[in-house]
């Protein structure tokens, strides 16, 4: 299996505060990799470093055989790396269709875009129902789906999902994770950040545990799911 994303010893600063202390991780083609950890552990920061929204202080990021450490965020999207931002990261004044259309911003292959649009609407029937509704008026779950669908419209090689289950009802959490698995089975590699460790570990091939900006544990999803310390800290079982 080939390595799609490789992060080597990446540190990141917010002003003078070090948010990431030299973390390293890899994502292989076809995998779902989860990054779990408590609030403020640096999960979203890691995502920002990978997508290029925040510059890294040191370390290297390689994607698809290329060093992208210094590459601008929008050019990373063109190389096939797309992030669905957490929570309310959709365009609130645009309709559902306009939002999805923005996802395909970098693409010129109109017929293929139309095919992907049909796929996304099939994946998220709710979005199809609300295609003309303005993004800001959608419910939290629908906004989350829109963010994922919009990212898919760029036809990424690697999809970054930042807290896809945040603020959702348990039923919806199940649903969104099923969709994530389905997206993966259709051939998209996924790196996902989650507070909902139970679901994330159950669905992921491999996972990393992040604590105060450092990776403290790694393993397959099943391994970590049964790891006593992970159980205690993140799964709420003693």
């Amino acid at each position, binding site marked *: 299996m080939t390595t799609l994303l490789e992060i080597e010893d990446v540190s990141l600063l917010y002003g003078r505060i070090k948010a990431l202390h030299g973390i390293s991780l890899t994502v292989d083609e076809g995998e779902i990799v989860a990054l779990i950890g408590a609030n403020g552990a640096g999960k979203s920061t890691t995502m920002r470093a990978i*997508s*290029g*929204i925040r510059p890294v202080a040191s370390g290297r990021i390689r994607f698809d055989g290329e060093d992208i450490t210094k590459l*601008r*965020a*929008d*050019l990373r*999207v*063109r190389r096939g790396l*797309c*992030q*669905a*931002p957490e929570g*309310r*990261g*959709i*365009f*609130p*004044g*645009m309709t559902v269709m*306009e939002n999805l*259309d*923005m*996802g395909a*911003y*970098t693409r010129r292959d109109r017929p293929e875009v139309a095919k992907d649009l049909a796929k996304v609407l099939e994946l998220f029937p709710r979005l199809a129902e609300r295609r003309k509704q*303005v*993004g*800001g*008026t959608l419910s939290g779950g629908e906004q989350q789906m829109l963010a994922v669908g*919009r*990212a898919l419209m*760029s036809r990424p090689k690697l999809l970054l999902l930042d807290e896809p289950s945040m603020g959702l009802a348990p039923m919806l959490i199940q649903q969104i994770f099923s969709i994530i698995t389905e997206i993966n089975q259709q051939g998209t590699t996924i790196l996902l950040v989650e507070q909902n460790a139970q679901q994330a570990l159950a669905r992921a091939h491999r996972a990393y545990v992040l604590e105060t900006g450092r990776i403290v544990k790694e393993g397959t999803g099943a391994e970590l799911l049964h790891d006593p310390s992970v159980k205690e800290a993140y799964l709420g079982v003693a």
Partner: protein
Amino acid sequence: MNSVREWIYTGRHAVAERWHNAPRWTRWAVIGAVIVFFYALPNREFYQWLGPIPTTGSNFGQVLFTISIYVLLAVGLNIVVGFAGLLDLGYFGFFAVGAYTVAVFTSPSSDLKTLWPWLLALPLAIALTMVSGVFLGTPTLRLRGDYLAIVTLGFAEMIRVAATSSEFLKGQRGFNQIPHPPGSYSDGKPIFGVLDPRPYYWLVLTVIILVVIGVRNLNRSRVGRAWISIREDEDAAQLMGVPTFKFKLWAFASGAAIGGLAGALFAGKQNFVSSQNLELLNSIIILAAVILGGSGNIVGAIVGGGLVAYLIERFRGIEFFGVELYEYRFMFFGLILVVMMIFRPQGLIPNRRRAAEFKDRRKEVIVGG
């Protein structure tokens, strides 16, 4: 009170609805009628029937020219503030660059003594303002938020100080005998003279129509979509692959170019440019006009620019219990702004998206505590 508001609200919606559902030819007919109205407006034979609308204290043609310049500036600033969501507090600085470029290259009182005709200086004025926009934007547009507002404020002030105190730019003495735009009637008299302000108004009106067509097309293209995405959520825009810096710079430079164009037109009419034209207040007035009209909406910007400039002029020559109301014009202006921001923060004719963004932001404030 509430029912009145509701009535206005639904009434306005009905108008908007009807407008969008009207057949194409009706819309064109209405737009055509509005354009004809504004071309006819400065003629006494026409405006004498309009009751209290024409200004009493000053030449109505002259007032209309001033208003048209403000409208052009509002349309330009709307690209920067309304479309791309960049707060520019020194937009008038670009107007100054345009006016001074024309002055320096055409006026006999300039040290350059190039004495170019107005029309030759016009493209240079536009180009130079665009360059100054890029120059100012390159270091600052990479930063987020309030930095840009401060830098643009400083820029306009810098231009003013330079114009006031530099020997080359002549300070308050200014540049005189700036040539008028070319053209003459069949009897050999120049179209653009000193006495009649109307041809200048018609010229600016024509320029506004052309600029609006251009801006509208730009806004409906990929460029426009990129601007909207940046305004709505800059991080998300970047995550979708929009080169945000490039498009912010584009918005800034095109806005600047329109400001420079307005400055050049003004210089050609006034045939005198000095540092006295460059008050900070002008930048604020234009910004207020865009926000008042409904930022992000071209029609809103036009209405805002026209209304603000008109109201300020309208106060001239009106006495109320022995008080000259013109002296208090900015007090009323401020009052209107405050009231507007409380009851209708999205402006008179808001953009559909903008209204949704406002609601979204409010929700965010509540959710975030």
